[in-house]
């Protein structure tokens, strides 16, 4: 897919502009190539989106084509956490802990309306976190309720593009701003 065909190139340019170092660029390129082509998701699903994530991993849509072959159950070995579904207040600390326990580099995809903003449970609900970004930093938002598997794949392509822009420096800055002090 060409660059113009993607949504939201502006944010990407913004990220690109910050912190490019010519000396490290090639190294970064190699590292990013590895990272972007082998994103292992954490098996983490709460609601309907989880089923669509499973469908994305199954034969018809086949996540594995993008190198997301291995669903790791342990956060230590996973690279990307796809928050598929609602996060409630009781679950939030668990999610935070899971995210903390993942090893660097780690990425977050908020999949579906619930994860982005509370979705169907935005109004009148007493226990739903209105958007997972209140808990952990999110890299890519995939709207839909639930998003089609293709939409998730598209989100993953977006994430790959995001990884391409990252350098050692910018990752460092990102981590520092999100770690517990």
């Amino acid at each position, binding site marked *: 897919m060409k660059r113009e065909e993607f949504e939201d190139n502006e944010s990407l340019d913004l990220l690109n502009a910050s912190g490019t170092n010519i000396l490290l660029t090639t190294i970064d390129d190699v590292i990013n190539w590895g990272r972007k082509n082998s994103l292992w998701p954490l098996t983490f699903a*709460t609601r309907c989106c989880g*089923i669509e994530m499973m*469908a994305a991993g199954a034969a018809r849509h086949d996540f594995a084509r993008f190198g997301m072959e291995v669903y790791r159950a342990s956060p230590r070995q996973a690279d990307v956490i796809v928050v598929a579904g609602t996060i409630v207040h009781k679950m939030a600390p668990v999610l935070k802990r899971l995210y903390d326990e993942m090893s660097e580099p780690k990425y977050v995809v908020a999949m579906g309306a619930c994860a982005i903003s509370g979705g*169907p449970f935005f*109004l009148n609900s007493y226990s739903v976190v209105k958007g997972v970004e209140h808990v952990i930093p999110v890299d890519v938002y995939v709207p839909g309720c639930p998003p*089609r598997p293709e939409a998730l794949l598209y989100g993953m392509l977006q994430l790959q593009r995001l990884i391409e822009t990252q350098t050692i420096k910018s990752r460092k800055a990102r981590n520092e701003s999100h770690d517990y002090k």
Partner: protein
Amino acid sequence: MQEKEIITSTDEQQEYVINMGPQHPSTHGVLRLLVSLKGEKVKSVQPHIGYIHSGIEKMCESITYPQIIHLTDRMDYISAHINNEAVCLNVEKALEVDIPDRIKVIRTIMSELTRLQSHQLWWACFGMDLGGLTCFFYGLRDREKILDIFEETCGGRMILSYNCPGGLMYDIHPNFQKRVKEFIKYFRKILPEYDQLLTGNVIFHERSKGIGKLTKEDAISFGVTGPTGRASGFSCDVRKHEPYSAYDRVQFKEILHTEGDTFARYVARIDEMWESMNIIEQLIDNIPEGPFAVKMKPIIKLPEGEYYQRVETARGELGVYIISDGNKNPYRVKFRSPNFSNLSVLNHIASGFKIADLVAIGGSLDLIIPDIDR
């Protein structure tokens, strides 16, 4: 004194508690099981739920009846259509609306398709729980075909939002009948393959026979319904006992098994897939003509009173209990979700088996956690 210390620390007293979930591949969502082990044997299981409790019952009190549909979709999202049907039937019953046959038949077909895809997904996940990777791919492959039918008619893959009080959102797509027939023909060929792959497999037999026995008395007492209850011999099929929609005009068997173990639950679901296909085949050619929705008032108000409607979802008996005070919002809505009761039986049937069996039992109960937590 020293002896005393030693005695209190004998391993008999020490509980070895292992935590499964909320993030755990075999709990299908965010169920958390606290399993006390002795060796690898499960001494007791304590389900901890509420990790996805989103307060649907409270939310229902401040939205209108048509809007409830979009929440019931997200309770048991695998059989979303049947959940919606329960609410719609309840509202229609309260308003004493006469529903044309066409709507009834379409609803029934859609419900059965939902049941089929739910059982396919269950088969896929159950296979994966037991370690058979390919089951996952085959089950989801066939499920995609049903999802395509859904998507063509309703515009959504899982969350259909197809029912509304008084009928359906849209008419069925012109291709609907053709595609359903094609699918049934295809799936009648494929289903024996499932049997070859898993049902007849000696490893699977070893893993499932005699595991997690549930007697009929316990099933009734725990309120275990659906295929899980019927595998224990508890005749609880709402479609048979209190027919709704078009179930009174089709011939089908209520699947009953008596063993009550994991294998019986498995076979009950496989048999139910066959029955679902039978039901669809009886109806698909006889969809009567007529409108796809009854004209309803723009703002639906239920007369004061209490209404209860039960339907048979893929997992068991779903009850919708509405207390209305005459306003456009319900006063109180209670969903009696099948999974909630089915979960409560877990400790009872899983104690004494091994931790691997716990996974198999949990898989055979086919739990959908958001339906439990609501």
